């Protein structure tokens, strides 16, 4: 009983979770584009790409925080401050590109606001944006982990389906 319904229930849970993330604006259709690139030859494509995204994003977040700590005060106009804001801009461009590429819409939007603050050398604005970015990133990471866990459980549940159904059909234990 669990096996046949398990995979279906898990699939429904996955769809509900995705629908929620789309409704919240956390993900956009680019995530669906990624899913369409999955096939028999690369069944874990999305989870592999997202893993790379997580790995790279955490490096970027660490770098962004370090750079902001090196900037002193708002509208830092000295040469070193300008350099740090320049590096922040480069990191944010990278973060925007990668988040757009997996459909992480809210993360990308916060990066946009962060970049605007950085362009104006607004340290307080950058700090606020960084906190928001870390918050959005953590939420996205938790939800996508949940999604991929459901996917793994669904694969396991579907994997033992045939032998159980064959057994059930033969001895008719269903009541």
């Amino acid at each position, binding site marked *: 009983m669990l096996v046949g319904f398990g995979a279906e229930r898990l699939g429904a849970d996955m769809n509900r979770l995705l629908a929620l993330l789309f409704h919240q604006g956390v993900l956009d259709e*680019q995530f669906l*584009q*990624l899913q*369409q*690139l999955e*096939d028999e030859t*690369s069944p874990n*494509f999305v989870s*592999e*790409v997202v893993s*790379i*995204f997580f790995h*790279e994003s955490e490096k970027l977040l660490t770098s962004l925080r370090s750079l902001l700590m090196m900037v002193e005060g708002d509208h830092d106009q000295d040469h070193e401050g300008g350099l740090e804001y320049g590096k922040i801009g*480069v990191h944010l*461009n*990278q973060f*925007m*590109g*990668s988040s*757009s*590429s*997996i459909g992480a819409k809210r993360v990308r939007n916060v990066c946009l606001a962060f970049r605007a603050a950085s362009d104006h050398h607004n340290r307080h604005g950058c700090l606020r944006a960084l906190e928001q970015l870390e918050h959005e990133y953590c939420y996205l990471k938790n939800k996508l982990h949940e999604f991929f866990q459901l996917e793994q459980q669904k694969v396991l549940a579907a994997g033992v389906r045939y032998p159980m159904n064959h057994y059930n059909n033969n001895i008719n234990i269903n009541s």
Partner: protein
Amino acid sequence: MAQQGGSSSSGGSRILSGGSINVSPMKPLASLKVLVVDDEPMIRTIHKAQLVRAGINDVEVAANGKDAVDLHVNGATFDLILMDLHMPIMDGCQATKKLRAMGVKSSIVGVTSSGGAEKTAFLASGLDDCVSKPFVLQQIAHYLKVPRSPTNPPKYHNP
């Protein structure tokens, strides 16, 4: 906007001196060679998967502009180059200028999240086109499927 007449050193134009147009025959997708140039492993993975899914089997990747240039110095040729802008060692602008100066005639399409003056400068470096990251295949279909002909020349954006 395509340039008409005379010769041009810009990579975006395929006009030879005397006004004739260099027509490249359409190749089947499976025989196209594409180079993806981006410093982010994830982006390279996604772009390569998109191209393979479209039927292009020969997709090479490079992590920066210098690696892309070195491939060409070593004799590699490509039908299409997808070029990121911001990369370490050599960025997309420098790489595109270098490739055009070397006489590379491949279609080079910029793929970038940047806009405004940065994008304009990128286009002016010798790109045939520039699309936003992430791109959808339809945006570059022109460079994969449509033959270069007098009625449908490749685009080249003047600054």
